[in-house]
């Protein structure tokens, strides 16, 4: 199990926009560099990208939740 942490504080989104599907669902393959979510900081959207490869296990932080830097957003199975 590997953790994907938030690089910054802000608001976490699972989806590119409210009308889109979430970036990943459990079971999806994740390659290095894949975007798994967005953190909105001071009106700017920052992509959260996977730094290792694996299989998406699930989001650990709810959609639109406030997050701190370092908070675990999602986990990967390897």
């Amino acid at each position, binding site marked *: 199990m590997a953790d994907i942490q938030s690089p910054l504080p802000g*608001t976490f989104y699972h989806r590119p926009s409210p009308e889109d599907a979430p970036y990943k669902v459990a079971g999806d393959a994740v390659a290095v560099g894949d975007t798994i979510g967005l953190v909105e*900081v*001071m*009106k*700017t959207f*920052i992509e959260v990208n996977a730094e290792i490869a694996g299989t998406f296990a699930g989001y650990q932080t709810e959609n639109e939740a406030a997050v*701190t830097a370092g908070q675990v957003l999602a986990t990967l199975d390897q």
Partner: protein
Amino acid sequence: MTIKRLFIANRGEIAVRVIRAAQELGIHTIQAHSEADADMLAVRLADEAVCIGPAASKDSYLAIDRVVAAAKQAGADAVHPGYGFLSESPEFARALEAAGIAYVGPSADTIERMGDKVAARQAAEAAGVPVVPGSKGRIATVDDAAEVAREVGYPVMIKAAAGGGGRGIRIAADEAELRKLAPQAQQEAQAAFGDGGLYLERAVQSPRHIEVQILGDGETAVHVYERECSLQRRRQKVWEEAGAACLDDDTREALCASAVVLAESVNYRGAGTLEYLYDAARNEFYFIEMNTRIQVEHPVSEMITGVDLVQEMIRVCGGEKLSLRQQDIARSGHAIEVRINAEDPHMQFMPWPGKVGAMRLPEGDGIRFDHFLYEGYQIPPFYDSLIGKLIVHAPTRDAAIDKLAGALADLHLEGLKTTAPLHLALAADKDVRAGDFHTQWLEPWLEAGNLAAAAEKSAGKPETATTGGAS
């Protein structure tokens, strides 16, 4: 003064600004705040504070019902909306009116009319104020758009009637592009603003953004001269000046007079700004839109005239007449404001909501720093990145730029990364010194690496200390 208890429905530096103005007028202040803002400076300065909801703006500062209920409960007789958030919402103004609470701004009808950019354009034309050549009103069909474009000439800007502030704009270089972009622009506008209406304007080449500050009491209006705001990144102003050094006196006079005519024609009450595009090559100005609120950059106008715009807007919205006649408003010297944002200018302006460590602030005659910082304050990540405005005033523009460079060098905010290095680099730039820029100048300057070059040049000078990552 009929206003006795003022509710401030905003945050950050403008909330502090409003509290200071109100307290000087002897008015009791009630500060609204989200859960994430319980520690903000405005809360500490106000006479009372009220929590209006969780961190997310949509559930707090933008939640009309919550804000109105809180103001009512606190026994407020007036609400100041600041800028952004609900400050240009006719629904908010109406809800306050229904609750029997005064609104520090113009009537809901005026906000609504000037908020519709087509109606505002038509009001300007009716008042004899020049507008950018373009469509008479909303364009009904793509064929109509093509006809208008043929008359005014390409390139044209396709603009959303419910847009404003640089949003909902597409540029078409020819008819084929126009026919492709117009339907897209309409869908986007519908989705973003709930109104797909469009209008057309000729795209002015390398315009300067010049705006005029006005004050009105519902009958009479006066101007407080103009501001030069062409230095913008992603349509956000970063550096603003009063006055616009590129204008000769006759043009300035005509520009400011036109703003007063328009403000009076709509019975404007409060502080407002009329924005124009200025075509230096033709020495022509064109009205583009009106902002029916106080603006971020209002301090530069205050510095060159001595007028307190926030106090004046509170007074007139409390029922008083304007305390100044036009002949009482004289301008002197030159003022420059630079926006200090919590962003890393060397990392594509990445947001940097750090914790404020030791602060040393520039002081002296003609130096003003409007902010909401204190040692130990944790900047929240949920709102925009503006953390302060550094304003200088001097007898000439040259002296103001020199004073600005000195003040920036004296500004030390430990624990933060800010856009101060950007402003230092701009102050040292020859084009900026010559006043030789326009709305399309800053972004190419940044892309060409001028900021990085300036940073290298000043390497060796102490940088503000940083913590190891945001907390």
